[in-house]
């Protein structure tokens, strides 16, 4: 039982306490998730910060800790999507081109094969990238992804399937090049 579960049993806990619990438990994993989705540390931190702000502001409307957690996660995924969209519009260029312009600091930790995999991931359509990252990196269940992205479980499955196929095709190509 984490701090989240304790909330429903202890109504005297304030929103700030509850947010602190959520923050302690999920902040880092959410930033990692956001980095996986937007591929930039600074944007990722902002997205997660904004998600926490939203949760705090609508705290009284959230049904319980599970609802808060679900809301938080979806806010991060949506925030990442908005960020990528704005980035694409602002630069009037595909998001993938940003990868090459990423700072040395951001790319130094990954080896060449990993870098090519990440590039291939960020070329995929947004929905496919989201489903792959959520399913295989963040380990959400299909039902959670369906919930978070507002799509059916069947669509989650088919999107994951297509995403893996597209990723394989891209990797086969770059591996051979």
């Amino acid at each position, binding site marked *: 039982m984490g701090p989240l579960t304790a909330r429903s049993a202890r109504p005297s806990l304030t929103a700030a306490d509850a947010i602190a619990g959520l923050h302690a438990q999920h902040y880092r994993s959410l930033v990692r998730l956001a980095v996986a989705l937007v591929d930039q540390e600074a944007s990722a931190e902002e997205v997660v910060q904004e998600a926490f702000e939203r949760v705090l502001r609508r705290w009284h409307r959230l*049904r319980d800790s599970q609802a808060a957690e679900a809301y938080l996660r979806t806010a991060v995924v949506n925030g990442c999507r908005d960020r990528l969209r704005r980035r694409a519009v602002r630069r009037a260029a595909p998001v993938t081109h940003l990868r090459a312009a990423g700072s040395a600091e951001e790319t130094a930790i990954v080896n060449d094969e990993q870098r090519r995999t990440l590039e291939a991931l960020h070329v995929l359509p947004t929905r496919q990238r989201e489903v792959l990252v959520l399913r295989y990196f963040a380990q959400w269940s299909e039902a959670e992804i369906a919930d978070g992205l507002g799509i059916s479980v069947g669509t989650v499955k088919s999107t994951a399937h297509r995403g893996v196929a597209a990723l394989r095709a891209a990797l086969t190509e770059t591996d051979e090049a």
Partner: protein
Amino acid sequence: MNDNMVIDRLRDALEARTEHVEGRADSLDLLLLDPHRRPRRHAAPASAVLAAAAAAAVVGVLLLATALRGPSSDTQPSRQPGFGSTYNITAGTTDRYPAADFFVTRQVVKLTRSTFTDRPVIARTSDLKVVRTLPLSLMGARLTTDGSRVFGFYMGSAGGEGTANSGSTDERVRKLVSRDTAAHAVYYDFTTGDIVDLGRAAFPGITGMTVTPNGGTVAFASIATGGGDHTTIRIVDVATGQGRNIAVPRPHQVMALALSPDGKRLAFTETESGNILFLADLSQPNPAATATAVVPPSPCRKAAYDYPTWTDQGLFAARECEPNQRGMVSDVVRLDPQTLQPAGPSLARLPDGGVLTLVVLQTPTGLAFGYAPARTPGRLGDQRDQRVVFRENELWLIKAGASAGHRTGLVWGT
């Protein structure tokens, strides 16, 4: 390279990429110091924000039936504006009361917040009249055919905050909701004013509920977490309050259930392994053991059933089918209630991306299907838990948003 190798490689790359990511240590302090500052990214012109908010709140309900385009319009053109054409209901859900701002686009109707004070209501949109007031907010709400009772479930709060009902000023509701934190299935009787408890869910909540048209039998599914999530479906005879449980043959989430109108059979889908459709004969001593299960037949490579719905017209379900690599086709099919095999051709096409609800409507000229598309630009939780109900030639949108206070709002739509 097989699929698992691709997935492993993806996981490895993302782990490496994010391994050293820590975020800002001071982010919580910043948040709590100044929680109400506007997020920097939202510094858009007010009009743009409003437009975005309006767009985000669109809930589309489309009625599909080619048979309806035609002579029906000369007979009753004005009395049934929804039939035979696209029918849009736009619901504003940005405030505490999701039912507070309903716009029905074709009729240019707006319900203002003052219409709804602190109680969920049933409203008739054509004249803005609140038809009924509910003492408590319900999720999964369904009406009986005669409109005398509304069935649904609520989350308990055990005296704490955080549920739509915890702020209720109604003593009965407060007492009910503070009993425990589990979800309870209930019905509210408009005539007597009684709220009748139909049973408590296994923790943490109810994932789906169905009721026969006359309100005689109820079935709801709940998942007990721990020890391998295990789903139980409880069947309750409403008149006697007698209930029994059926264990789901596989430990999967059951989200969509449909009782046959006579209450003797139950169709349900599970969402973990591929949306298998099950049919249980409730007259058997152990319905789970004799349940039939099917996946959609060829030509689908991959396929799923969802939203079984059972009316006097038969058993229907949404079918998602991926006939080839190119994409998914979703449609409505009628199923043989004995074998669960499709009986006849596809009846209506559903949008790519699936639907959130499906209802079968008996219209003066034949069958129509109402659905809310999954891919609506809504906010988290707002699209959850919607039901479209058709009763005596009136379309009802039953909405209980999850995150925004999940008030029950029933909007009478024709």
